[in-house]
C-alpha cells in the first residue's frame, strides 16, 4: 500500500512540476540589443540568375518483354533518348522560377514548373505520365466494336497496360495573417485492364480503360499568434468514356463503372495554450452517382439517384504536463450515410431462366475512434510510451452490425547506451461485437459457422524490436524484428489464424571521404490458416498459406578518382516473393508454383569534364521471373477462356550516356 502511495505521490509531483520547455523560436528572441543596420553580409553569397543543371541522355535498351518498362521508364526498345532539367532562376528582388523535369519523352516522366516570390505568392504547373505494364502479350478472341464484343476465329495479342496523364495547376498567395490556394488537377487514364464477362461461361477480357478525373481544391487559412484555422473545399468528378459491354447475341453483359462526383467542405484548426495543443477538423461531404442505368426488363428506373452523405469530425489534444510527461488523446468520428434510393431489380441466376427480384442495399457505416496515450521520460536514457485505442464500427445490413477493437500498447525507448537506440513495442488488441448472425439481405444460404474475417472476434498480439547502433561515426547498423499473431478463436469456418514475422538488417558505412557503402537484407513470413466446409456444417477441409519474402540490396560509391574527376558506383537489388498453398481434404495437396524474383544491377561512372560539364555512363540490368500455376492458356479448359499465360521470364539491358551541364 505504501509503495503504491509513493508511486502515486511521485507521479503527482512530477505531473505538477513546473513545465520547463525551451522555445528558441525567432519570434521569442530577445532582440533589444540587435541593430540590423550594421548587418552587411559581405561574406554571404547571393544566388541571383540561373542555377541548376540541364542534361540529355541517349542510349540503348535491349529487351523482349514490355514489363521491363516499369523499371526502365519507357517501353521503347533499341535507341532511346531523354532530357532532364533542374533549373532555378532568381532575380535581385527575390522573384523565382523553377523547372524540374525527369525523363521527358518516356512513358514514365514528369515536369514541375513553379514561379513566384516565396512568402508572397507562387504559381505551380505539374505534368506527370505514369504507365504501368502488366503484360505485352495478353490474348483474346474478342474484338471491341462500339461497346460490342465481337468474336473472332483467331485470338490476337494485345498489351495489358494503363497510362495516367496528369496535369495540375496551383496558385497560392501568402500574407502574415492569411493564406489562400486553389488547385485544379485533371487525369486521363487509358489502356486495358484485365476483367471478365459471362458468355454464359466466363471469358476473360482486356477491359478498355478510358476515363477522366478532374479535381478542384480551394482553401483559405487564417492564423494568429497561437492559433490557425483552415477552410477548404474539395470536389472530384469522374467521367468514364468507355461503354457498357454487349455481345452481338447477348445484351449488356457488363456495366461500365458509372460517372460519379464527390464534394467535401472541411474546417480545421489548431489552438495552443501554453504547453497544450488542441487541433480539430470537421468535414461534411457528399458522393453522388446518378448515371443512366442499363435499360432492360426488370429495371424500374432510368437512372439511380445514388447519394452518400459523409460527416467526419476529429478532435486531438496533446499536453506537456511536465518536462517528463506528455499526455494526449483524440476522438475521431466518421459517418457514411447512404441515402441512395432503393428499388427492386430483376436478377438472373445461373441458367438465365430462373429470375428473382432483389432490392439494392444502402449500407450505412458509422465509426468512432478513441485514443489515449502518455509518454514519460523515466530518466535521461529511458522513455516509456503507453496508450489505449478503441475503434467502434456500426454497419447496417451486415452479418455483424457492431464491432469494436480495443488495443493496449506500450513502447520503451532506451538511449542509455552511447550510440545505441533500442525501441521495444508490444501491443495487444481484441475485437468483439454484437451477435453474429446470418442476414437474409447479405446471404441466403450462409454456413452458420462462417465468421467473415473482418467482422470476426479476433485477438491480436504484436511485438516489435528495433536497434539502431552507430558504433563509429562513419558506420551505422540498424536491426529490427517483428512478430504479430492474429487468432480468430470463435471462427470455425473462415480465417482461423494468421501470423506475420520478419527481420530487417541495414548497414551504412562512409568508409572515407570518397567511399561509401550500404547493404540491407530483410526476410518476412506470413502464414495463415483457414477452414471450410463442403457439407454446410463443421469444417471438412483446410487451407494453409505460407508466404515468404526476401529482399537484399547492396551498393558502393567510390569517388575522388582521377584528380577528383571520376566517381564509380554500383547497386544491386534482389527480391523474391513466394506463396505456398496447401489444401488438406482427404490428404494434403500443395498448389503449384506461385512466386516471382528479380535481380537489378545498376553500375555507373561519372566523369567531370570541367567544373560545369559531366558525363555519366550507366549500365542497368533487370532479370525478372514470375510464375503462377493459376495461369492457363487461352482455351486450356472449356469452363473459362483466359487471356493466356501472363507469366514473365526475361533479362533486359540498358546502357545510357548522360551529358549534363551545370548552369
Amino acid at each position, binding site marked *: 500500500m505504501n509503495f503504491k502511495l509513493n508511486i502515486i505521490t511521485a507521479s503527482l509531483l512530477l505531473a505538477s512540476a513546473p513545465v520547463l520547455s525551451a522555445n528558441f523560436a525567432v519570434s521569442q528572441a530577445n532582440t533589444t540589443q540587435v541593430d540590423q543596420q550594421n548587418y552587411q553580409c559581405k561574406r554571404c553569397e547571393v544566388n541571383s540568375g540561373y542555377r541548376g543543371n540541364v542534361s540529355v541522355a541517349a542510349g540503348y535498351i535491349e529487351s523482349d518483354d514490355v514489363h521491363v518498362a516499369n523499371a526502365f521508364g519507357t517501353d521503347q526498345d533499341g535507341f532511346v533518348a531523354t532530357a532532364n532539367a533542374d533549373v532555378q532562376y532568381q532575380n535581385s528582388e527575390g522573384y523565382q522560377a523553377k523547372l524540374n523535369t525527369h525523363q521527358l519523352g518516356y512513358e514514365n516522366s514528369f515536369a514541375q514548373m513553379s514561379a513566384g516570390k516565396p*512568402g508572397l505568392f507562387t504559381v505551380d504547373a505539374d505534368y506527370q505520365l505514369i504507365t504501368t505494364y502488366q503484360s505485352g502479350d495478353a490474348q483474346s478472341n474478342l474484338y471491341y466494336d462500339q461497346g460490342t464484343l465481337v468474336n473472332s476465329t483467331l485470338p490476337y495479342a494485345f498489351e495489358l497496360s494503363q497510362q495516367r496523364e496528369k496535369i495540375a495547376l496551383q496558385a497560392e498567395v501568402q500574407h502574415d495573417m492569411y493564406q489562400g490556394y486553389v488547385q485544379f488537377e485533371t487525369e486521363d487514364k487509358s489502356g486495358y485492364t484485365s476483367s471478365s464477362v459471362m458468355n454464359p461461361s*466466363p471469358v476473360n477480357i482486356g477491359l478498355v480503360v478510358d476515363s477522366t478525373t478532374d479535381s478542384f481544391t480551394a482553401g483559405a*487559412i487564417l492564423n494568429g499568434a497561437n492559433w490557425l484555422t*483552415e477552410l477548404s473545399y474539395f470536389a472530384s468528378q*469522374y467521367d468514364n468514356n468507355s461503354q457498357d459491354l454487349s455481345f452481338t447475341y447477348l445484351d*449488356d453483359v457488363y456495366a461500365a463503372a458509372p460517372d460519379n462526383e464527390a464534394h467535401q467542405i472541411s474546417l480545421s484548426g489548431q489552438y495552443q495554450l501554453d504547453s497544450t495543443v488542441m487541433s480539430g477538423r470537421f468535414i461534411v461531404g457528399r458522393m453522388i452517382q446518378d448515371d443512366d442505368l*442499363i435499360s432492360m426488363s426488370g429495371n424500374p428506373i432510368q437512372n439511380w439517384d445514388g447519394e452518400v452523405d459523409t460527416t*467526419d469530425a476529429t478532435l486531438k489534444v496533446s499536453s506537456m504536463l511536465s518536462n517528463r510527461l506528455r499526455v494526449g488523446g483524440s476522438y475521431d468520428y466518421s459517418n457514411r450515410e447512404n441515402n441512395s434510393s432503393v428499388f427492386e431489380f430483376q436478377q438472373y441466376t445461373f441458367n438465365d431462366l430462373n429470375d428473382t427480384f432483389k432490392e439494392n442495399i444502402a449500407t450505412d457505416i458509422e465509426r468512432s475512434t478513441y485514443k489515449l496515450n502518455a509518454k514519460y521520460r523515466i530518466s535521461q536514457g529511458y522513455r516509456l510510451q503507453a496508450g489505449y485505442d478503441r475503434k467502434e464500427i456500426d454497419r447496417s445490413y451486415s452479418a455483424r452490425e457492431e464491432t469494436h477493437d480495443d488495443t493496449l500498447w506500450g513502447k520503451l525507448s532506451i538511449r542509455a547506451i552511447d550510440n545505441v537506440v533500442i525501441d521495444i513495442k508490444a501491443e495487444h488488441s481484441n475485437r468483439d461485437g454484437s451477435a453474429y448472425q446470418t442476414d437474409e439481405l447479405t446471404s441466403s444460404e450462409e454456413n452458420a459457422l462462417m465468421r467473415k474475417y473482418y467482422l470476426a472476434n479476433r485477438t491480436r498480439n504484436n511485438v516489435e524490436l528495433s536497434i539502431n547502433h552507430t558504433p563509429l561515426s562513419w558506420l551505422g547498423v540498424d536491426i529490427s524484428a517483428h512478430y504479430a499473431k492474429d487468432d480468430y478463436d470463435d471462427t470455425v469456418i473462415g480465417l482461423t489464424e494468421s501470423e506475420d514475422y520478419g527481420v530487417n538488417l541495414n548497414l551504412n558505412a562512409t568508409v572515407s571521404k570518397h567511399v561509401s557503402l550500404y547493404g540491407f537484407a530483410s526476410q518476412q513470413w506470413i502464414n*495463415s490458416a483457414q477452414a471450410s466446409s463442403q457439407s454446410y456444417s463443421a469444417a471438412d477441409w483446410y487451407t494453409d498459406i505460407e508466404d515468404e519474402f526476401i529482399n537484399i540490396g547492396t551498393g558502393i560509391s567510390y569517388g575522388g578518382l582521377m584528380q577528383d574527376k571520376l566517381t564509380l558506383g554500383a547497386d544491386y537489388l534482389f527480391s523474391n516473393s513466394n506463396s505456398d498453398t496447401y489444401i488438406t481434404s482427404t490428404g494434403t495437396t500443395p498448389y503449384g508454383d506461385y512466386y516471382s524474383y528479380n535481380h537489378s544491377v545498376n553500375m555507373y561512372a561519372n566523369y567531370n569534364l570541367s567544373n560545369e560539364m559531366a558525363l555519366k555512363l550507366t549500365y542497368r540490368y533487370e532479370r525478372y521471373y*514470375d510464375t503462377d500455376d493459376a495461369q492457363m492458356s487461352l482455351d486450356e479448359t472449356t469452363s473459362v477462356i483466359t487471356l493466356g499465360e501472363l507469366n514473365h521470364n526475361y533479362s533486359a539491358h540498358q546502357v545510357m550516356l548522360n551529358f549534363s551541364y551545370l548552369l
Partner: protein
Amino acid sequence: MNAYKQLLFALSLVIYGCAFNAASTPWEQLDSEQLETTLIEKFAEGNYSPKGADSCLMCHKKNDKVMDIFKGVHGNVTNSNSPMAGLQCEACHGPLGNHNRGGKEPMIQFGQDSKLSTQTQNTVCQGCHNDAKQMAWHNSTHNLEDIACADCHVVHAATDPALEKLTVNDTCTNCHTREKADMNKRSSHPMKWDQMTCIDCHSPHGSMSESALNKPSINDTCYSCHAEKRGPVLWEHAPVTENCVTCHNPHGSVNESMLTHRAPQLCQQCHADDGHASRVVQQPGVDAFGGGKSCLNCHSQIHGSNHPAGSTLQR
C-alpha cells in the same frame, strides 16, 4: 592467412583513423540538460553579434556545408521570410554570445549529433513553420517518436531531399525499412521507381486522419487515384465499401493486385454460402474456380456493380 591478417590490420587502421577523426564539439562534455540550460540563458540574454552572418562566416566560411545555406531558401537574403533576411545565422543557431571567443560556448545545433532534445530543436523550425501543413504535428507519431525536423530535412543545401520527388522515398525509407522492402514485393504501387511517393498518400507532419493520411479516410485516399471505385454503386460489396485494406495491402504483397491473399482463398475467408463458394479447389490452374482470375472469372465486378441485374457482382 598472412593476407587475412594484413587485411585485418588494414581494416583496423581504417577504423582507428576514422574513429579519431570523428568531429566533436567543444561542448561535448555538457549533458543534454546542462546544454539546454546554457542555451536558454544565452537566448534570454540576447547577446547577438554586431554584424550578423559576417561574424559567423569569419570562421565558418571555409566549411562548404555552412556555405551551402546560400544555395537554398533559408539563405535567401531577398526573401523577407527567410532567416537570412532577419537575424541571419543566429535566427536558427541562437545568439552568438561569447561563442566567437574560442568557440567553446555552445550554439543551437541540429540533427542526430545534437544533444539538444528534439522537442527543443524543433521549436526553432516551428517558430516560422507553424502553418496549416503542420497543424497536426503535435499529435503526430513523428512528434511522439521524437523525430527532429533535421532528421528528414536539410536546409544547408540547394535542394532538400525530403521535398524532391526523386528522393523523398529514400528519406522516408531510411527509417521505414519494412515499407522499403514492401516496395519490392511481387505487386506494389510503383514506389521503387519513384513514380509514386510516400507523401502522395501520407503526411509526414501528421494529419487528422488515421495513419497520417492526406485524405479524411483510407478509402478517400484510394479514391484519389481510383475514382472509378468511389461510387456509390447500385450493388455494393460490403467489405469493399467499408475499407479497401480489408483485402489489399497498399504497401505491397507477394500476391498479385496487392491482395492479402489470392482468390479463391481470400474469397473463401468470407464466403461459404453455397455449393460453389465452399468447394475445394485442389489445384489452381485446372478450371474456372481456380484458373485465370478464379472467383473473379464470374464475379468480375468485385468492387461493386451498377448493372440492374448485377447483385451477384457478375456483370
